[in-house]
Protein backbone atom coordinates (compact mmCIF):
# COMPACT_ATOMS: atom_id res chain seq x y z
CA UNK A 1 0.00 0.00 0.00
CA UNK A 2 1.62 3.14 -1.24
CA UNK A 3 -0.01 5.68 1.01
CA UNK A 4 -0.01 3.82 4.27
CA UNK A 5 1.17 6.03 7.08
CA UNK A 6 4.62 5.00 8.30
CA UNK A 7 4.65 3.41 11.71
CA UNK A 8 6.59 5.22 14.38
CA UNK A 9 8.77 3.49 16.95
CA UNK A 10 10.61 5.02 19.89
CA UNK A 11 13.60 3.25 21.47
CA UNK A 12 14.72 4.60 24.85
CA UNK A 13 18.22 3.62 25.93
CA UNK A 14 21.00 2.68 23.57
CA UNK A 15 22.73 -0.18 25.23
CA UNK A 16 23.92 -2.83 22.80
CA UNK A 17 20.43 -4.30 23.05
CA UNK A 18 18.74 -0.96 22.34
CA UNK A 19 20.97 -0.21 19.35
CA UNK A 20 20.26 -3.65 17.84
CA UNK A 21 16.53 -3.29 18.41
CA UNK A 22 16.54 0.19 16.83
CA UNK A 23 18.34 -1.28 13.79
CA UNK A 24 15.82 -4.13 13.55
CA UNK A 25 12.82 -1.80 13.71
CA UNK A 26 14.43 0.49 11.14
CA UNK A 27 15.00 -2.44 8.78
CA UNK A 28 11.39 -3.49 9.29
CA UNK A 29 10.28 -0.15 7.86
CA UNK A 30 9.50 1.78 11.07
CA UNK A 31 10.28 5.45 11.46
CA UNK A 32 12.55 5.08 14.46
CA UNK A 33 13.50 7.71 17.03
CA UNK A 34 16.17 6.76 19.54
CA UNK A 35 16.73 8.62 22.80
CA UNK A 36 19.60 8.33 25.24
CA UNK A 37 21.14 10.52 27.94
CA UNK A 38 24.59 10.01 26.45
CA UNK A 39 25.13 11.32 22.91
CA UNK A 40 28.19 9.08 22.57
CA UNK A 41 26.01 5.98 22.63
CA UNK A 42 24.52 6.78 19.21
CA UNK A 43 27.72 5.37 17.75
CA UNK A 44 26.45 1.89 18.55
CA UNK A 45 23.66 2.22 15.96
CA UNK A 46 24.14 0.32 12.71
CA UNK A 47 25.77 2.44 9.99
CA UNK A 48 22.78 2.49 7.68
CA UNK A 49 20.42 3.67 10.47
CA UNK A 50 18.95 7.05 9.59
CA UNK A 51 16.24 7.58 12.19
CA UNK A 52 16.11 10.51 14.61
CA UNK A 53 18.66 10.58 17.41
CA UNK A 54 17.73 12.61 20.45
CA UNK A 55 19.98 13.22 23.43
CA UNK A 56 17.75 13.49 26.48
CA UNK A 57 16.00 11.88 29.43
CA UNK A 58 13.30 9.44 28.36
CA UNK A 59 11.57 9.70 31.72
CA UNK A 60 10.97 13.42 31.13
CA UNK A 61 7.50 14.19 29.79
CA UNK A 62 8.64 17.11 27.66
CA UNK A 63 11.36 15.03 26.02
CA UNK A 64 8.84 12.30 25.23
CA UNK A 65 6.46 14.83 23.72
CA UNK A 66 9.25 16.38 21.69
CA UNK A 67 10.32 13.08 20.22
CA UNK A 68 6.77 12.29 19.19
CA UNK A 69 5.70 9.50 21.52
CA UNK A 70 2.11 10.57 20.93
CA UNK A 71 1.40 8.87 17.63
CA UNK A 72 4.03 6.18 18.05
CA UNK A 73 2.87 2.58 17.78
CA UNK A 74 5.91 0.98 19.38
CA UNK A 75 7.81 1.99 22.51
CA UNK A 76 10.88 0.03 23.64
CA UNK A 77 12.31 0.91 27.07
CA UNK A 78 15.73 -0.72 27.27
CA UNK A 79 17.87 1.58 29.40
CA UNK A 80 20.14 -0.08 31.93
CA UNK A 81 17.98 0.69 34.95
CA UNK A 82 14.86 -1.35 35.72
CA UNK A 83 13.06 1.45 37.55
CA UNK A 84 13.78 3.86 34.73
CA UNK A 85 12.38 1.38 32.18
CA UNK A 86 9.37 0.76 34.36
CA UNK A 87 8.60 4.51 34.60
CA UNK A 88 9.03 4.99 30.82
CA UNK A 89 6.69 2.05 30.14
CA UNK A 90 4.10 3.33 32.61
CA UNK A 91 4.16 6.82 31.09
CA UNK A 92 3.88 5.20 27.65
CA UNK A 93 0.80 3.27 28.73
CA UNK A 94 -1.02 5.70 31.06
CA UNK A 95 -0.28 9.02 29.40
CA UNK A 96 0.47 8.37 25.72
CA UNK A 97 -1.29 5.00 25.41
CA UNK A 98 1.21 3.58 22.93
CA UNK A 99 -0.09 0.39 21.31
CA UNK A 100 2.92 -1.90 21.79
CA UNK A 101 5.22 -1.39 24.73
CA UNK A 102 8.31 -3.47 25.45
CA UNK A 103 10.60 -3.04 28.41
CA UNK A 104 13.71 -4.63 29.75
CA UNK A 105 13.75 -5.76 33.37
CA UNK A 106 16.86 -7.42 34.74
CA UNK A 107 15.16 -8.17 38.03
CA UNK A 108 12.27 -10.55 37.27
CA UNK A 109 10.63 -9.55 40.59
CA UNK A 110 9.87 -6.11 39.14
CA UNK A 111 7.43 -7.67 36.68
CA UNK A 112 4.81 -7.75 39.41
CA UNK A 113 4.71 -3.96 39.47
CA UNK A 114 3.54 -3.65 35.88
CA UNK A 115 1.23 -6.64 35.83
CA UNK A 116 -2.04 -5.74 34.15
CA UNK A 117 -0.54 -2.84 32.20
CA UNK A 118 -0.46 -4.81 28.96
CA UNK A 119 3.24 -4.31 28.33
CA UNK A 120 5.73 -6.98 27.18
CA UNK A 121 8.68 -7.70 29.43
CA UNK A 122 12.08 -8.74 28.10
CA UNK A 123 14.03 -10.30 30.93
CA UNK A 124 17.69 -11.02 30.09
CA UNK A 125 17.99 -12.95 33.36
CA UNK A 126 15.06 -15.22 32.56
CA UNK A 127 16.16 -15.72 28.95
CA UNK A 128 19.69 -16.67 30.04
CA UNK A 129 18.33 -19.11 32.61
CA UNK A 130 16.05 -20.70 30.02
CA UNK A 131 18.95 -21.04 27.60
CA UNK A 132 21.12 -22.49 30.33
CA UNK A 133 18.54 -25.05 31.32
CA UNK A 134 18.10 -26.11 27.68
CA UNK A 135 21.85 -26.47 27.26
CA UNK A 136 22.14 -28.34 30.54
CA UNK A 137 19.58 -30.91 29.51
CA UNK A 138 21.36 -31.62 26.22
CA UNK A 139 24.03 -34.21 25.61
CA UNK A 140 27.59 -33.02 24.90
CA UNK A 141 27.28 -33.74 21.19
CA UNK A 142 24.02 -31.84 20.80
CA UNK A 143 25.41 -28.94 22.76
CA UNK A 144 28.40 -28.60 20.45
CA UNK A 145 26.08 -28.00 17.51
CA UNK A 146 23.99 -25.27 19.16
Amino acid at each position, binding site marked *: MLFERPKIAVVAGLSRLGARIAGMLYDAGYHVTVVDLDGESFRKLPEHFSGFQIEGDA*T*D*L*ETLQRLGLRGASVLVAVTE*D*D*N*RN*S*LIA*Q*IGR*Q*IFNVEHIFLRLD*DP*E*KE*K*LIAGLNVSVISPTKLSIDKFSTLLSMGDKERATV
Partner: protein
Amino acid sequence: MKIAIAGGRTEADFLIGSLVKKKHAVVAINEDREWCEHMAETHQTPIICGDPCKEYVLRDARIAGFDVIIALMPEDYDNLGICQMARQLFGVKKAVCTVSNPQNVAIFGKLGINNVISAAYLISTIIEQASTFENLVQALSLEEGRVSIVEVLIEEKFACIGKTLSELDFPLNSIVACVIRNTDMLVPNGQTSLRLNDKLLIVASPESQNSAIAALNTKAI
Protein backbone atom coordinates in the same frame (compact mmCIF):
# COMPACT_ATOMS: atom_id res chain seq x y z
CA MET B 1 2.62 4.62 63.09
CA LYS B 2 5.11 2.31 61.38
CA ILE B 3 7.18 4.33 58.95
CA ALA B 4 9.95 3.25 56.54
CA ILE B 5 12.39 5.77 55.10
CA ALA B 6 14.22 4.75 51.92
CA GLY B 7 17.33 6.65 50.83
CA GLY B 8 18.07 10.28 51.62
CA ARG B 9 20.90 11.81 53.62
CA THR B 10 20.51 14.90 55.79
CA GLU B 11 16.75 15.03 55.26
CA ALA B 12 16.47 11.34 56.22
CA ASP B 13 18.59 11.95 59.32
CA PHE B 14 16.35 14.84 60.35
CA LEU B 15 13.17 12.90 59.58
CA ILE B 16 14.26 9.85 61.58
CA GLY B 17 15.01 12.07 64.57
CA SER B 18 11.73 13.92 64.37
CA LEU B 19 9.59 10.81 63.79
CA VAL B 20 11.27 8.79 66.54
CA LYS B 21 10.74 11.68 68.92
CA LYS B 22 7.02 11.54 68.11
CA LYS B 23 7.01 7.84 69.07
CA HIS B 24 6.67 6.42 65.58
CA ALA B 25 8.30 3.07 64.80
CA VAL B 26 10.86 4.00 62.15
CA VAL B 27 13.01 1.82 59.88
CA ALA B 28 15.56 3.49 57.62
CA ILE B 29 16.95 1.78 54.52
CA ASN B 30 20.05 3.11 52.82
CA GLU B 31 22.69 1.78 50.48
CA ASP B 32 25.52 3.84 51.93
CA ARG B 33 27.23 1.76 54.60
CA GLU B 34 28.99 4.70 56.25
CA TRP B 35 25.75 6.63 56.48
CA CYS B 36 24.04 3.59 58.01
CA GLU B 37 26.76 3.18 60.61
CA HIS B 38 26.56 6.84 61.50
CA MET B 39 22.75 6.67 61.75
CA ALA B 40 22.86 3.52 63.86
CA GLU B 41 25.04 5.41 66.33
CA THR B 42 22.86 8.52 66.40
CA HIS B 43 19.35 7.06 66.40
CA GLN B 44 17.66 4.38 68.48
CA THR B 45 15.91 2.74 65.55
CA PRO B 46 16.68 -0.09 63.08
CA ILE B 47 18.83 0.92 60.10
CA ILE B 48 18.97 -1.51 57.18
CA CYS B 49 21.95 -1.29 54.86
CA GLY B 50 20.96 -2.17 51.27
CA ASP B 51 19.52 -0.85 48.03
CA PRO B 52 15.86 0.04 48.77
CA CYS B 53 15.02 -0.47 45.08
CA LYS B 54 15.42 -4.21 45.61
CA GLU B 55 12.46 -6.24 46.75
CA TYR B 56 14.57 -8.51 48.98
CA VAL B 57 15.99 -5.49 50.82
CA LEU B 58 12.48 -4.23 51.57
CA ARG B 59 11.59 -7.74 52.69
CA ASP B 60 14.63 -7.77 55.03
CA ALA B 61 13.42 -4.45 56.42
CA ARG B 62 10.05 -6.14 57.16
CA ILE B 63 7.97 -3.27 55.87
CA ALA B 64 4.90 -5.45 55.16
CA GLY B 65 1.80 -3.80 56.60
CA PHE B 66 3.63 -0.55 57.43
CA ASP B 67 1.58 2.65 57.49
CA VAL B 68 3.93 4.85 55.48
CA ILE B 69 6.90 4.55 53.14
CA ILE B 70 8.92 7.69 52.44
CA ALA B 71 11.21 7.48 49.39
CA LEU B 72 14.00 10.06 49.22
CA MET B 73 16.25 8.67 46.48
CA PRO B 74 17.99 11.12 44.12
CA GLU B 75 16.42 9.61 40.99
CA ASP B 76 12.68 10.14 40.53
CA TYR B 77 12.13 6.77 38.84
CA ASP B 78 13.70 4.97 41.81
CA ASN B 79 11.26 6.72 44.13
CA LEU B 80 8.34 5.64 41.95
CA GLY B 81 9.64 2.07 41.90
CA ILE B 82 10.06 1.98 45.68
CA CYS B 83 6.62 3.48 46.34
CA GLN B 84 4.89 1.10 43.93
CA MET B 85 6.72 -1.89 45.36
CA ALA B 86 5.84 -0.92 48.91
CA ARG B 87 2.19 -0.34 48.04
CA GLN B 88 1.62 -3.29 45.73
CA LEU B 89 3.91 -5.99 47.10
CA PHE B 90 4.04 -5.12 50.79
CA GLY B 91 0.63 -3.56 51.35
CA VAL B 92 2.08 -0.34 52.78
CA LYS B 93 -0.85 2.05 53.26
CA LYS B 94 0.63 5.35 52.22
CA ALA B 95 3.56 6.23 49.98
CA VAL B 96 5.30 9.59 50.06
CA CYS B 97 8.25 10.57 47.87
CA THR B 98 10.27 13.51 46.65
CA VAL B 99 10.97 14.28 42.99
CA SER B 100 13.47 16.58 41.32
CA ASN B 101 11.43 17.09 38.15
CA PRO B 102 8.30 19.08 39.18
CA GLN B 103 6.31 17.57 36.28
CA ASN B 104 6.58 14.19 37.94
CA VAL B 105 4.14 15.31 40.67
CA ALA B 106 1.32 15.05 38.15
CA ILE B 107 2.73 11.99 36.35
CA PHE B 108 3.21 9.98 39.53
CA GLY B 109 -0.33 10.94 40.53
CA LYS B 110 -1.61 9.36 37.32
CA LEU B 111 0.44 6.27 38.13
CA GLY B 112 -1.22 5.97 41.54
CA ILE B 113 1.34 7.65 43.83
CA ASN B 114 -0.35 10.74 45.18
CA ASN B 115 1.88 12.17 47.87
CA VAL B 116 4.70 13.54 45.77
CA ILE B 117 6.78 16.47 46.93
CA SER B 118 8.83 18.54 44.55
CA ALA B 119 11.36 20.57 46.50
CA ALA B 120 12.12 22.71 43.45
CA TYR B 121 8.43 23.52 43.03
CA LEU B 122 7.79 24.23 46.72
CA ILE B 123 10.87 26.38 47.14
CA SER B 124 10.19 28.38 44.00
CA THR B 125 6.59 29.06 45.06
CA ILE B 126 7.66 30.12 48.52
CA ILE B 127 10.41 32.35 47.16
CA GLU B 128 8.00 33.82 44.65
CA GLN B 129 5.41 34.53 47.33
CA ALA B 130 7.96 35.88 49.76
CA SER B 131 9.40 38.26 47.22
CA THR B 132 6.14 39.44 45.71
CA PHE B 133 4.32 40.69 48.78
CA GLU B 134 5.40 43.11 51.40
CA ASN B 135 4.17 42.47 54.96
CA LEU B 136 3.95 38.86 54.16
CA VAL B 137 5.56 36.93 56.91
CA GLN B 138 5.00 33.44 55.72
CA ALA B 139 3.15 31.61 53.02
CA LEU B 140 2.43 27.93 52.86
CA SER B 141 1.36 25.97 49.80
CA LEU B 142 -0.96 23.02 50.31
CA GLU B 143 -2.60 20.43 48.07
CA GLU B 144 0.05 20.70 45.35
CA GLY B 145 -0.28 24.45 45.31
CA ARG B 146 -4.06 24.61 45.01
CA VAL B 147 -4.47 26.19 48.44
CA SER B 148 -2.24 28.72 50.13
CA ILE B 149 -2.17 29.98 53.67
CA VAL B 150 -0.70 33.46 53.96
CA GLU B 151 0.26 35.24 57.13
CA VAL B 152 -0.07 39.03 56.96
CA LEU B 153 0.94 41.52 59.65
CA ILE B 154 -1.24 44.63 59.78
CA GLU B 155 1.07 47.61 59.78
CA GLU B 156 0.29 51.30 60.32
CA LYS B 157 -0.15 52.15 56.66
CA PHE B 158 -2.89 49.54 56.15
CA ALA B 159 -6.27 50.99 55.23
CA CYS B 160 -8.14 48.15 56.94
CA ILE B 161 -7.28 49.24 60.49
CA GLY B 162 -10.49 49.90 62.41
CA LYS B 163 -12.66 48.31 59.73
CA THR B 164 -14.70 45.13 60.18
CA LEU B 165 -14.05 42.19 57.92
CA SER B 166 -17.47 42.55 56.28
CA GLU B 167 -16.50 46.05 55.18
CA LEU B 168 -13.54 44.73 53.26
CA ASP B 169 -13.81 43.49 49.73
CA PHE B 170 -12.39 39.99 49.87
CA PRO B 171 -12.33 38.06 46.59
CA LEU B 172 -14.02 34.71 46.00
CA ASN B 173 -12.17 31.70 47.42
CA SER B 174 -10.47 33.56 50.24
CA ILE B 175 -11.18 33.86 53.93
CA VAL B 176 -9.50 35.27 57.01
CA ALA B 177 -9.33 32.05 58.99
CA CYS B 178 -7.66 33.38 62.09
CA VAL B 179 -6.61 36.63 63.75
CA ILE B 180 -3.66 36.58 66.11
CA ARG B 181 -3.87 39.56 68.47
CA ASN B 182 -1.04 39.87 70.98
CA THR B 183 -0.84 36.29 72.16
CA ASP B 184 -4.50 35.38 71.68
CA MET B 185 -5.95 33.74 68.66
CA LEU B 186 -9.50 34.37 67.57
CA VAL B 187 -11.60 32.99 64.77
CA PRO B 188 -13.11 36.12 63.26
CA ASN B 189 -16.56 36.78 61.85
CA GLY B 190 -17.81 39.66 59.71
CA GLN B 191 -18.09 41.94 62.76
CA THR B 192 -14.48 41.46 63.85
CA SER B 193 -12.63 44.74 63.38
CA LEU B 194 -8.95 44.74 62.60
CA ARG B 195 -6.32 46.47 64.67
CA LEU B 196 -2.74 47.53 64.25
CA ASN B 197 -0.27 44.64 64.71
CA ASP B 198 -2.94 42.00 64.19
CA LYS B 199 -1.57 39.02 62.38
CA LEU B 200 -4.02 37.48 59.91
CA LEU B 201 -3.99 33.97 58.51
CA ILE B 202 -5.66 34.03 55.13
CA VAL B 203 -6.66 30.81 53.38
CA ALA B 204 -7.02 31.43 49.65
CA SER B 205 -6.64 29.92 46.23
CA PRO B 206 -3.37 31.02 44.57
CA GLU B 207 -5.37 33.18 42.12
CA SER B 208 -7.21 35.12 44.80
CA GLN B 209 -4.28 35.37 47.21
CA ASN B 210 -3.04 38.65 45.71
CA SER B 211 -6.39 40.41 45.71
CA ALA B 212 -7.12 39.17 49.24
CA ILE B 213 -4.02 40.96 50.48
CA ALA B 214 -4.88 43.96 48.36
CA ALA B 215 -8.35 44.06 49.99
CA LEU B 216 -6.68 44.81 53.32
CA ASN B 217 -5.06 47.87 51.89
CA THR B 218 -7.73 49.37 49.64
CA LYS B 219 -8.86 52.76 50.83
CA ALA B 220 -12.19 53.33 49.11
CA ILE B 221 -14.68 50.78 50.29
